[in-house]
């Protein structure tokens, strides 16, 4: 037990608000929780008196499961809510829905919402800590933290000079934006790669490199994060066909083996096997996709633990 500075924020809305020290504190705390979840008894009593509401206004399987497991392993009480079977359908506003839930004495809210900025809006209006579990195309901070944490496990604590390429649908991806902020704060170099239609026009203003040739991008990088094509967010056609996308921007074993160095392959899931990456790449020893999932629980435990520490019960 070492006394250290607290997180600089009261809510986790986006990586943009965090400092490098915050990110490192989260990683250090996650190291301990990773030990905990590999023990025979994977549970600690730290959050015995905290109640957490998971509000999912948008579909999610692994993020919700990961948050729920993290909360339960910290011994918090958990209530789950998904928009599909709720009063939202009956015309209730977001604030009303959440205030009703908070009236039942909830300390912390984990929310996923299809509108960018929903988490920030909520954090200003309600009296509870808010963790953003993805707001539209804006940010998905815990995913970026677990991605960077997984890179740290493979390549060491110092990110200076590490090269990471994010491949795929950058325009519609909250994972991409959070990843860019997180990796840059840690000192890594970031490149985005994808079809011109899926790369935002002004993305270079964030200080990232842009490349439209997958092979060149992969030759440059140490780590490739292959994003899913988010067909559900694309209201118009951005490329002629999935087959063409896969031929130009899909990573297969042949290309992976032909690179001059061994790179690490990541994917935030869910994978469309044969589209972004082929099955043999997803299952190869260079892929850390399942480690990312395991680290997701440890990172979420760390985030919730550190935010809960700011709820004072003197």
């Amino acid at each position, binding site marked *: *037990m*070492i*006394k*250290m*500075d*607290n*997180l600089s924020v009261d809510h986790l809305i986006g990586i943009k608000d965090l400092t490098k020290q915050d990110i490192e*504190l989260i990683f*250090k*705390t996650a190291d*301990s929780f990773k*030990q*905990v979840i590999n*023990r*025979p*008894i994977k*549970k*600690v*009593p*730290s*959050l015995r008196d905290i109640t957490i509401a998971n509000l999912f206004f948008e579909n999610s399987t692994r993020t919700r499961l990961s948050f729920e497991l993290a909360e339960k392993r*910290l011994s918090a009480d958990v209530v789950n809510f998904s928009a599909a079977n709720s009063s939202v359908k009956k015309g209730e506003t977001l604030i009303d829905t959440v205030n009703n839930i908070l009236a039942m004495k909830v300390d912390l809210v984990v929310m996923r919402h299809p509108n960018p900025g929903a988490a920030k809006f909520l954090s200003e209006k309600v009296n509870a800590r808010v963790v953003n579990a993805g707001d539209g195309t804006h940010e998905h901070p815990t995913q970026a933290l677990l991605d960077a944490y997984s890179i740290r496990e493979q390549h060491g604590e110092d990110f200076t000079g590490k090269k990471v390429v994010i491949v795929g649908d950058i325009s519609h991806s909250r994972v991409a934006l959070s990843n860019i902020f997180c990796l840059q704060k840690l000192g890594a170099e970031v490149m985005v790669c994808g079809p011109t239609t899926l790369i935002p026009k002004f993305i270079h203003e964030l200080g990232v490199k842009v490349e439209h040739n997958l092979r060149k991008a992969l030759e440059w990088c140490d780590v490739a994060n292959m994003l899913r094509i988010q067909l559900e967010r694309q209201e118009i056609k951005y490329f002629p066909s999935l087959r063409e996308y896969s031929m130009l921007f899909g990573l297969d074993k042949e290309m992976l083996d032909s690179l001059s160095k061994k790179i690490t392959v990541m994917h935030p899931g869910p994978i469309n096997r044969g589209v972004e990456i082929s099955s043999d790449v997803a299952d190869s020893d260079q892929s850390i996709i399942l480690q990312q999932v395991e680290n997701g629980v440890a990172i979420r435990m760390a985030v919730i*633990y*550190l935010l*809960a*520490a*700011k*709820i*004072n*019960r*003197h």
Partner: protein
Amino acid sequence: MLNPNQMDKRTILNSKHVELTLKRLASQLKENHQSFENTVLIGLQPRGIHVLERLKTILEKDLSTKLICGQLDITFYRDDFRRRDQPLIPSVSNIDFIIEDKRVVLIDDVLYTGRSIRSGLDALLAFGRPKEVELLVLIDRQFERHLPIEPKYTGKPVNTLSSQVVVVEWEQHTGEDKVILCTEDDKNG
């Protein structure tokens, strides 16, 4: 944490006393555990591990065998989470053996309210069900307990006021083994 300049100091044990006390504790452990076949020693993070290290060195030299030792972090099991201004940041737990049916000796430097030991007992359960748990402390601050916890092996019992602080210094950190009693004379301004 402690500013030694603001405190009035009194030595409880000097380096010679620390050495003798550790040797006596080691002998007492040997009496009860003989060959240490089914015994594991576990030091509490962050300060109990130094007591453990020293006892380990003495015992391994005497017995000429390797002892099974571990380090236990209790941060997540503490009962004062969210009741202090600073968050508690954990240390490393390092127990790479099963404690099921083992005789466990929990080791810490100073026993005060007993709350750390309570947390330690909780934390220990995550590694299995020990046959028996004993407590060894270098310093026992008697009459200050908040919980019904007593050590089986005590280096030195001392009577203190709750306004006082017992600090254990180790050779590898400060150049000299020493146990001192400090008084925060400016405690109330």
